[in-house]
């Protein structure tokens, strides 16, 4: 992902020296693979080190730190998606662009949960304040009947 400035430099070259669009698409495709691998790495960090320890302040900082990794990734990935959209509008699609767009959507969904909401949920479960799924199913049925 750190190669995006290089991509931009090549994409900006003037007439006569322009890099062929197909070459740019190949480059963008490599950046897509790199971005997807980076995201998998962040997910691995989370799986290995992200479990709550039952210590409020540490768990809050842990959740925040992991969220920051995802935010940094998302910022760069969406910049790359912008370049890919330019190529696509010029008739040059980039392989796996949809996979990257979906990865960005999933990451946005993940980041819609705040570290405060994570801490609150952990606390609620520790206090045994949980609700059986059947209550939600009944609530949904009532709403569908209304």
């Amino acid at each position: 992902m750190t190669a995006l400035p290089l991509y931009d430099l090549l994409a900006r070259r003037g007439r006569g020296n322009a890099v062929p669009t197909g070459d740019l698409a190949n480059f963008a495709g490599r950046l897509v693979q790199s971005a997807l691998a980076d995201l998998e790495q962040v997910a691995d960090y989370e799986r290995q080190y992200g479990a709550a320890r039952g210590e409020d302040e540490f768990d809050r900082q842990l959740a925040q730190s992991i969220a920051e990794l995802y935010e940094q990734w998302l910022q760069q990935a969406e910049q790359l998606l912008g370049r890919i959209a330019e190529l696509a509008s010029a008739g040059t699609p980039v392989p796996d662009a949809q996979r990257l767009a979906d990865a960005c959507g999933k990451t946005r969904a993940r980041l819609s949960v705040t570290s405060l909401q994570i801490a609150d949920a952990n606390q609620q479960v520790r206090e045994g304040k949980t609700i059986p799924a059947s209550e939600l199913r009944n609530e949904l049925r009532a709403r569908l009947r209304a």
Partner: protein
Amino acid sequence: MSYALDFAPEARDAWRELDVQLQETVLDELERLASVHLQAAPDFVHDITVDDGGAKHYLFFRLAASGTNLTVLNIGHHARPL
């Protein structure tokens, strides 16, 4: 092994903010997840993508498996217009 599925109030509140069709999809998916043996760690995340024709919905779940219970801790949602 299947699990008894329950929700933290935080997750229930997030579920209530979804439209009805997504609420049903979420319950179906989480009940399916609770009915299978989970290979994941006690705390884990899960996500699904739902295309309703007008938008692509990305749903994210934080879950905790403990004993015979599977608890939904948090639900995240992002929609991208198609």
